């Protein structure tokens, strides 16, 4: 009987997104919702730790990793286009991808990590479109590249990272995201429902979007610190956050964020994955990042589906 009780508790922890985060100190115990750490079959047999195809090949229904994002995006069968959306006197270069068919769909705005709107970020949009959402991925480096170019004008990822840090003005990026969102909800196929999903610094923007967008229904945050408390006070919709335990800089902020959200009476569910690092969406074969992103993405899609119906 005792074991039955334990089993029910574990089940709750897994099926209710963020339960672990709301109920406890935000640390998921090993085995709660994510498989425990361990080997990947690297037996000492001289094979040298070659992973199965799972490590490098795209798995349907799961987010692409850095290894397979380029091929995923290049070979998508879904309709997609680049659009320059006006933002005041400027514009934001935006990747839009549509779900299969002609039916109406909710919009999800994808907010980039510090390396910019690269193939991995586009693959996130592709996966969202595959799951039935119209995905818009705005390039907040629009016009900030060499010779006034966009993300694709940078010659290498490190240049884009430096530019993100030095040249992206947060308020301007928020304006770009809001402009893209306004454009998105007016698309003929849009239902009017809209959410944001952001990674790293994009996670911070996702928080701000939940506070500042005139129309918004939900926001998901991957390993991004929250903005200040005044902004959190203005959050209008439920936020779902995912963090890695081995990402000390960001994850150290989560408890304070949860407390601030609670004080403000806002819904903030979150999960800290044991043994997962920063960038666990991009880099899925390291540490326990694989189980973390598999669980987080499944919950993200369920969360968006719930709030965007």
């Amino acid at each position, binding site marked *: 009987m005792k074991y039955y009780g334990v089993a029910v508790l574990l089940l709750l922890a897994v099926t209710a997104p963020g339960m672990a985060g709301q109920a406890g100190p935000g640390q998921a115990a090993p085995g709660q919702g994510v498989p425990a750490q*361990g080997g990947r079959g690297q037996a000492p047999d001289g094979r040298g730790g070659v992973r199965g195809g799972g490590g490098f090949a795209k798995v349907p229904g799961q987010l692409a990793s850095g290894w397979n994002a380029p091929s995923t995006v290049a070979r998508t069968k879904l309709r997609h286009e680049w659009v320059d959306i006006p933002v005041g006197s400027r514009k934001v270069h935006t990747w839009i991808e549509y779900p299969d068919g002609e039916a109406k769909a909710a919009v999800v705005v994808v907010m980039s990590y510090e390396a910019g709107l690269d193939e991995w970020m586009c693959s996130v949009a592709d996966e969202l479109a595959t799951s039935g959402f119209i995905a818009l991925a705005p390039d907040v480096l629009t016009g900030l590249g060499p010779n006034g170019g966009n993300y694709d004008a940078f010659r290498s990822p490190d240049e884009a990272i430096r530019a993100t840090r030095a040249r992206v003005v947060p308020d301007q990026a928020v304006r770009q995201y809001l402009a893209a969102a306004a454009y998105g909800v007016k698309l003929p196929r849009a239902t009017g429902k809209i959410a944001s999903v952001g990674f790293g610094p994009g996670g911070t923007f996702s928080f701000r979007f939940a506070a500042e967008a005139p129309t918004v229904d939900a926001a998901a945050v991957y390993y991004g610190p929250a903005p200040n408390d005044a902004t959190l006070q203005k959050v209008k919709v439920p936020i779902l956050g995912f963090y890695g335990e081995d990402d000390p800089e960001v994850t150290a902020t989560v408890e304070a964020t949860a407390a601030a959200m609670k004080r403000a009476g806002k819904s903030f569910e979150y999960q800290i994955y044991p043994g997962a690092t920063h960038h666990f969406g991009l880099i899925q074969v390291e540490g326990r990042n694989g189980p973390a992103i598999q669980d987080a993405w499944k919950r993200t899609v369920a969360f968006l589906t719930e709030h965007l119906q």
Partner: protein
Amino acid sequence: MNKNMNLAKGLTLVAATVGIAGAGYIRAASLKAAPAVAPVTIHSVLPSAAEAKQLLNTTTRHREWIVVPISKETSVLAWVVYPERSDRAQVVMVKGESLTPSDWTRALSDQLSAEGYLTVVPDVLTEVDQHGNRHARFALDASEVSRREEAVRQAALDLRDAERQLGTVEMGVSPSQIRIRTKQEQTSFALSAGTWPNLVGYLNERTGNKPTFVENPHAMHMAMMAQSAAGNSPAAGDIGKKDPRLPANYFMAKATLRDSKLKKEWIDIPLEGESVKLHTLVTYPTGTGKAGVVIVMQHGVGLDEWQRALVDQIAQDGFIAVAPDLWSGTGPNGGNWDASEFVDDAVRNAAGKVTPDETMKRYKTAREWALTLPRANGKSGSIGFCAGGGNSFRFATEVRDLNAAVVYYGAAPPEAALARIQAPVLGLYGENDGRMAENAMETQAIMSRLGKQYEPHVYPKTTHSFAMFQHIGTNGAAIADAWPRTIAFFKRQLS
């Protein structure tokens, strides 16, 4: 008789030094009259729930998750902590209120190991299939729980460091109480920082636990690395700016190759008896002087930008870096790695096509070719990453006059092969990489028995490909230590 004497001593300790008779130690009262003895030193504390994670992150005791088969297809996990003692240890199985270990039960097991016990915490809800995939079970009936726990108990007794004859002591722990079942009896203690020494005294007495503690060189190493990881080492920093002393990370590889001023060329080296030629990137150090040759063995996705940027770094550091495209001829239309459109295509196209023996043949061919270069000084070494790390280790077992081998997170060959190694081997591993670190420690024992030179470094909390993904977790501190070590090692062996 002797046993009774020991029992009395243990209890005297409890009564005399802690003075908690009646605080849950149910048999203390009747034995108070025993003669006083010198107090036993306690090596542990009861961790609080809040301290558990910190303790797990900083303990220097060797600990790991072991995979315990419960059927042909399925295994479960168990957390094991090894005591730092020179003789075999009593096994203690710790079970918390949940069927899966918490940080607290794991930390508590670590503290029991500080007293000389080999502790195991079963995780019967986490199943591992034949492919290493994990699945969390949510419910199990009690008989299946017992069956799985029994499998874990047997696996723990089978560990090399376990004293099998003693069987297991079983503990059920909750935040306020601990139940202990020894061979003799079952009892329980109220659990608090105050009763902990009492509990340890009882356990030591009941099990006859008299560990001979040893200094654990592995543990000291871990502590050293933890210290270095905590400090602000150069590489831990900017993900967008390369440190010239270190190889490029994931984000910097493209720029590193673009901006490199070193002389480089692609050579197609003939392979005996094959029509395929070995497409090989050779990068030279600056100047015209002679230099050692380093054969670079590719990681799991082949000779991609990151791997080629690493080749560049080896030449920057003064060696002729020779990087064969191991997958030469496996691409579309018999092409090489670069004939595939995307990285994942290259992996798929090459899968299973280059056998381990063919791998060795290709690297040997490249080495022999490289040693004939006018700038080669006659010395040669190998370095490999992931799968290539395993290849570098095996290369050392097959090439008698190799001067050095560096293994980044790759598996070791079997003992029979290790016996043939002549060259010194440097191994660099992340702790958070499955059984990799544990394998390194096992290999160290074998190499030491064989009288071979093997220097493994295991970096705490570091993941698998820490040379590539320098910007996550503590990987930055790991590569900041590992790379200068690598270059110093090559400089010693290849000059």
